[in-house]
């Protein structure tokens, strides 16, 4: 018998929710809007669970499971269908997106209660879920691109949700355009795939690619494709140099930041690279670029995160930094480690953002941590759940972030996938920077924690601060149950979620890695083929030494997390005069970091201004000044001639029609003469 998973239901349900709320929502009560807005993604999650239970029972040869729905685009022999593709990788993504997505929808019911455009918000949020699920379930790159651009649209709409504010409208536009720059790379990557494989279906492409050797000798076709796809990923997953849109995206309502700009959409680039692992694994050069970009992004964003005072901006830079980890994991060909971190990060970063939202909610819209403090008494639920999230992201065992981050650090240290490009020095550099980032992460997260919840309240009378998320009441108050429920569930996941992937060195069996192994397998075969050419495989006898090394590295990463905590405690709890003094000592360096290294200003000077300048030049000087002037000049000249010839000013159209007729007649005569010759 054949099992039918009806995957099409999963994206279609949120789409139905979006359509209902979008078309009819204006006339519905808030309660009805909320039921529709939560009910449809909820049903999608429920069906995803059913799919998961049936998927694990599928016989091996039916994985990847594909489901054909409709024809879509066809030209010549090329064809891309609306069809779905489910393997272990998409299943993990599916559960994370629908699960975390549902919790954030529930939270939004409470959070958005006092905002206008309630139905619009849920319509957009459901629309986002639809596109995200299309992205995950697509069976070809082109359909994936539909989801890819679609989530960008949802993000644009939701960042600009408070469209009366110019800053929000600007941020939405910036996000869309910067992502388009990345999409440009994605498109070119697809064009190369079409040119060489005449298909964009994952199955076809990966099958064709499996006959290609690893490009150890130098850059070849697969390197070019991989690098172009990676450009797309740097846009969506906010990596250097295209990360600039994500901090500004915090203009959107906080649940949006949690869902789209932390837990799900921004991980699409990671998913795309992991999905394309048969391509990337055959190009050590592309892998190296990915690893280096990820690593640099991780530490770069972490340094900025240390200096921000807006609670959401700290979390935004933290997200960029953590995405850098995931990028780096993919770059060292540890795709499952990257996806593992993607999952745990989805739990704890969604939690952290929702907690931040709860804090902002409690303070009637205040986002500046300098005007917070001592809130652990007033909002205990928020405090305790945020504590779980903070310890999880800082990498304290046995919380979720510890296992996933450690896995990445270990793979960065030990991988041989990049050997044909660089020696072990690259491994050690990647590892050192990543370790440093872990310490910075711990520091800025506990800085946030201490500033928000400890000390005394610095906010004064909490008057509405003009933020979009303005709320009605005045003294700090705990959020309603509908917001706290998701916090508690996410806190539980942040604590225990990492246990799915306990490494062998710590006595686990790394079930997560094993589960994803079939997706990565084909490429790891290619890898080992490449390795045979390069280095010998580690002997069984060496495994013991390797385990010790792994344990030592684990100790180091826990150590830096503790050091980060210690510094944060010293600076923001014990000796609160220190930050000002350190700032004074650092002077310009501190200002540069706080002002985000002036990258926005640089981009403005390098791109925006010249492009606008060139455009104006094209318009005023070329279009009007040269082209049109020439045309009109010719017209006037001929008019003068005709005037002087005919000494009369007839209606323009008629006189010229006469000229045309004359000209045509001359041509006719000439042509007839030619033909008669």
């Amino acid at each position, binding site marked *: 018998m054949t099992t039918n998973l009806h995957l099409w239901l999963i994206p279609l349900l949120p789409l139905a929710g979006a359509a209902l709320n979008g078309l009819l929502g204006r006339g519905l009560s808030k309660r009805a809007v909320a039921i529709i807005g939560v009910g449809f993604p909820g049903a999608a999650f429920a069906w995803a669970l059913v799919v998961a239970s049936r998927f694990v029972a599928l016989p091996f040869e039916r994985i990847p499971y594909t489901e054909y729905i409709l024809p*879509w685009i066809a030209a*010549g*022999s090329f064809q891309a269908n609306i069809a779905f593709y489910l393997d272990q990788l998409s299943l993990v993504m599916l559960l994370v997106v629908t699960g975390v997505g549902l919790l954030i929808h529930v939270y939004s019911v409470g959070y958005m209660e006092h905002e206008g455009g309630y139905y619009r918000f849920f319509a957009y949020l459901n629309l986002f879920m639809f596109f995200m699920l299309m992205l995950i379930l697509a069976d070809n790159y082109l359909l994936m691109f539909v989801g890819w*651009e679609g989530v960008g649209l949802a993000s644009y709409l939701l960042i600009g949700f408070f469209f009366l504010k110019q800053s929000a409208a600007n941020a939405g536009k910036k996000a869309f*355009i910067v992502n388009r720059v990345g999409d440009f790379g994605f498109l070119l990557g697809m064009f190369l795939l079409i040119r060489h494989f005449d298909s964009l279906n994952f199955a076809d492409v990966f099958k064709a690619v499996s006959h290609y050797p690893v490009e150890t000798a130098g850059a070849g076709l697969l390197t070019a494709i991989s690098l172009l796809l990676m450009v797309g990923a740097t846009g969506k997953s906010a990596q250097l140099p295209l990360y600039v849109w994500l901090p500004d995206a915090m203009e959107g309502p906080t649940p949006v930041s949690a869902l789209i700009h932390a837990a799900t959409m921004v991980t699409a680039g990671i998913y795309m690279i992991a999905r394309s692992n048969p391509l990337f694994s055959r190009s050590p050069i592309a892998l190296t670029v990915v690893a280096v970009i990820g690593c640099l992004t991780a530490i770069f964003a972490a340094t900025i995160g240390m200096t921000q005072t807006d609670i959401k901006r700290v979390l935004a830079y933290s997200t960029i930094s953590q995405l850098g980890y995931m990028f780096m994991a993919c770059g060292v060909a540890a795709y499952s480690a990257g996806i593992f971190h993607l999952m745990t990060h989805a739990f704890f970063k969604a939690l952290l953002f929702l907690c931040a939202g709860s804090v902002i909610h409690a303070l009637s819209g205040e986002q500046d941590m300098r005007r917070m403090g001592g809130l652990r008494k007033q909002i205990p639920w928020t405090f305790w759940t945020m504590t779980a999230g903070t310890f999880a992201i800082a990498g304290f065992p046995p919380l979720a972030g510890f296992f996933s981050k450690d896995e990445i650090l270990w793979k960065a240290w030990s991988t041989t996938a990049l050997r044909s490009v660089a020696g072990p020095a690259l491994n050690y550099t990647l590892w050192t920077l990543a370790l440093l980032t872990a310490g910075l992460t711990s520091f800025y997260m506990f800085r946030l924690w201490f500033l928000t919840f400890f000390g005394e309240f610095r906010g004064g009378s909490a008057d509405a601060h003009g933020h979009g998320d303005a709320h009605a009441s005045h003294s700090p108050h705990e959020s309603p149950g509908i917001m706290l429920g998701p916090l508690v569930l996410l806190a539980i996941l942040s604590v225990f979620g990492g246990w799915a992937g306990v490494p062998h060195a710590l006595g686990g069996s790394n079930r997560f890695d094993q589960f994803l192994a079939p997706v990565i397998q084909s490429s790891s075969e290619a890898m080992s083929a490449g390795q045979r050419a390069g280095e010998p495989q580690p002997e069984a006898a060496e495994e013991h030494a390797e385990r010790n090394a792994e344990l030592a590295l684990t100790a180091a990463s826990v150590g830096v997390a503790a050091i980060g905590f210690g510094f944060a405690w010293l600076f923001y709890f014990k000796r609160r005069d220190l930050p000002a003094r350190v700032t004074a000592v650092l002077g310009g360096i501190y200002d540069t970091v706080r002002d985000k290294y002036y990258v926005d200003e640089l981009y403005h000077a390098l791109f925006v201004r010249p492009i606008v300048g060139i455009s104006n030049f094209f318009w005023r000087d070329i279009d009007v000044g040269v*082209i049109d002037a020439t045309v009109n000049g010719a017209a006037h000249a001929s008019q003068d001639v005709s005037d002087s010839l005919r000494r009369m000013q007839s209606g*323009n159209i008629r006189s*010229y029609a006469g000229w045309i007729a004359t000209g*045509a007649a001359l041509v006719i005569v000439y042509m007839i003469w*030619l033909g008669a010759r």
Partner: protein
Amino acid sequence: MLNLGAINASILTLVTFLPAIGALVLAVFPRKVIAERWFALGISLVNFIFSLHLLRSDIPTQLSTATVFQFEIDIPWITSPNIHYHLGVDGISVWLVILTTFLVPLSILVSWHSVSHRVKEFYVLILLLETAMIGVFLALDMFLFYVFWEATLIPMALLIGIWGHERRIYASVKFFLYTAIASVFMLGAIIWLYSHFHTFDFATIKQALQTNPSEISWMASFWLFLGFFIAFAVKVPLWPLHTWLPDAHVEAPTAGSVLLAGVLLKMGTYGLLRFNVGLFPDQARFNGPWIMTLAIVGVIYGALVAMVQPNLKKLIAYSSVSHLGFVVLGIFSLTTFGMDGAVFQMLNHGVSTGALFMLAGMLYERRHTYEIKNYGGLATPMPLYATFFLVITLSSIGLPLLNGFVGEFLILAGAFQAKALWGALAATGVIWSACYMLWMYQRVFYGAVTDDHNAHLPDIDARERLALWPTVIAALIMGLAPWWWLARIDSGVLKLLPTLKTITQVIGR
């Protein structure tokens, strides 16, 4: 009682001339007897329904030797010179005819209140224009083609010149002269062909050129190619022959802009495909590089100039230069991808730019200005209008699942196959279009209302919604199920250029 055979034999004549008959009736009857608007709307709607009958044609597979054209009618018209009344439809022209019959009722709807003087003449001209436009797409006799081609000029020039805005005379004359002068080159080429082959019949000449390419010298075919090319390139308009377009659009009444952008520009790209590529494939290949270069310049230049336009209609006009650059690029990539995409993009541009001009017109009716700086924050007083505008904006910038994406993607993939650099350069267009459209959208709709005149603008009414819904639905369906269009287009393109790779027609698994 008509049977299907009789319908099939006369359907093209009917679709072509029904609007002209309507125009005649409208012109002859006294004003009081007929409500002009309702009559014109009715005629154009009936014609739209008739034109759908063309979809009952077969989709020829690559193996079938059946004639390319269907519903053909071929009657000698003038014996000397040998001119035939010869019409026929293939997988390319069928969609352009339907695009025309689709846009005419909509442009009548948006003129409902905005045209208040010489109402009868206005609708007479619109209907005459419809006949001429459809004739261009269906004519298979080159002389007939030329007659229809020139016949589109007069109603359009009058529409701009009589019902346009302040500088309407200047714009009208410029439009007329520019395109009429360019057409002379095509006339020359057609007459040369007649003098050589003693027929104006497209299929006969194509057949002769195909079976015996050395029939005419290389130099002669070069000049013939160029003759057609100049006429079509001005119409498209291809950079740098485009400067008549912004003036014509800004001054034209809404219906004029819709039909100008929606259909008349497509006559240029249709001609490039049918004549330049169809008759002279070798010349198309030889001249492709410089034409594609001009097309890419148009894509980027049009987008950049659009970005800094202070006038909404000019912005849309320059965006047309950019979009039509894509179409020309696809045509001269001479790949199935590019040419399929080009035809599809012609339809997209008709739908989305047509809709954009309708939307701009609705704003003009309320505020009597196209200056973007006079707007701002319109999403608050006009939420429904803002939503329609957003969907069309997204269609125009090629968001997947809307129509624009499919065309752009296929064209770029085709250009990339022809030469990677071309595809890459033109693909920057996806960035530029997002820049100019979203920036414009933000300036018109987002933020607080800054001008008191805009604070209480009425949102769109039922008639306006009726005009906009079809475009939104078309944009959505064409994005969701483009294969339905592409299957026919693919067959038409393949018959046009049989040297293209053989294709699989089976849609599905």
